[in-house]
């Protein structure tokens, strides 16, 4: 087995078919987005969920492990989100989620940095759900239906 890069270069004489051009374009996008986001994370994050559009946000989701940046970035630049999250969780917990999910684990501020940095165990699914919807949001619980409705996204 030789050098993959060299072998790929030597095979250029036979030309590239459509699938190969498509794959190369995808790799350009993958590496370009990865390096681009790494070079200016604030620019990308401001234009995705914090101020921007769903489309830009969806684009950034194709960068592997983007979500770790989202949470770390948010926490670092906007102060600890734990009190807001704890408040939300406690409020939801009061409406019965406490019986089904380990609310105490994610309302515990000591545990938050660990979850934020390392991804979430499967049983903390509600926390990750709130995280995806951004913790600094306002929710309204419709008493009659039990549905949480997002009222405000910063």
């Amino acid at each position, binding site marked *: *087995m*030789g*050098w*993959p*890069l060299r*072998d*790929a270069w*030597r*095979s250029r*004489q*036979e*030309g590239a*078919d459509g*699938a*190969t051009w*498509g*794959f190369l374009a*995808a*790799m350009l996008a*993958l*590496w370009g987005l*990865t*390096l681009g986001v*790494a070079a200016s994370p604030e620019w990308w994050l401001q234009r995705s*969920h914090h101020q921007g559009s*769903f489309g830009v*946000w*969806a684009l950034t*989701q*194709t*960068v*592997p*492990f*983007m*979500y*770790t940046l*989202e949470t*770390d970035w948010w926490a670092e630049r906007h102060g600890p989100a734990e009190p807001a999250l704890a408040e939300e969780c406690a409020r939801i917990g009061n409406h019965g*989620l406490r019986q*089904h999910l380990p609310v105490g*684990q994610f309302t515990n501020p*000591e545990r938050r*940095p*660990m979850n934020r*940095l*390392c*991804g979430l165990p*499967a049983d903390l*699914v*509600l926390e*990750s*759900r709130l*995280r*995806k*919807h951004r913790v600094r949001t306002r929710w309204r619980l419709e008493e009659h239906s*039990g*549905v*949480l*409705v*997002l009222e405000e996204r910063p």
Partner: protein
Amino acid sequence: MIEQVRSLPVGLRAAYVLLVGVLATLVWLAPTLARRAALMVRFPLVDGWFPDPLQAVGLYAGVVVLQFAVMVLALARPSRTTLRLFAWTTLGFGAVLLVHQASFGAASSVLFFWTGVWALWLTHATRGFERGPFFCLLLLGGMFAWPALGKLTPGYLSGEVYWRAHWNGPAGPQGIHMWVARVLSEPAHERLLRWFGPLSVAVEGAVALAWLLPGRWGFGVVGLGAVGILAMAGPSFIRVMGIVAAVAASGWVLAASEEVRAANAENAARS
């Protein structure tokens, strides 16, 4: 069945290996996917940020069921058509999971998406499979570039994050560290975990650049990196490393195939 797979062109053989690995990972992930869907039904959230279809549990459940069905079909009846179908559904499955309200930003979603791109090339390319090992390592490099770059923070480089995450959190030692703790003293264990900070950046950075290495070394670095991360983080990372292993195995199949080796020899003689 094995004879049927062996008779396929080299790209489709590699795609079949990819299919087996992705299916195994998906089976491992199935309880989590089901739990997410159940949570959506039990505690619905309304968030105008997501287009309506991407808030619907029906779409989420639909792509999961479709993905399983197509993969089982392609596993049982491997052909150009079924493997191409597997490639397209994997891309669609990953794309929906990436942006669906219920995806929770899970790393496996984004890896499924890029695995779909790789599967598309394997099943649609008509020539030039000697580029496959390079393409495979380039894709795996893209998967690992961000984890390496994203860890260039004081917390990771000092190992503080690992120390807090795997040992010193309120929940106590996690995963493999419960066993390590029986062998090492706490200060020794802390030193070890703090070493993991820079080490993880180095390993993930090496995997990200493995496409620059000779094939055997490149795939070896990917394998060692995946095993090391799995050992460090525990079984919860199977959902990520299973996909990485599947992509790497399919690239290896290409690299080791008679067709690719012969083409490489011919190209070398020509140049």
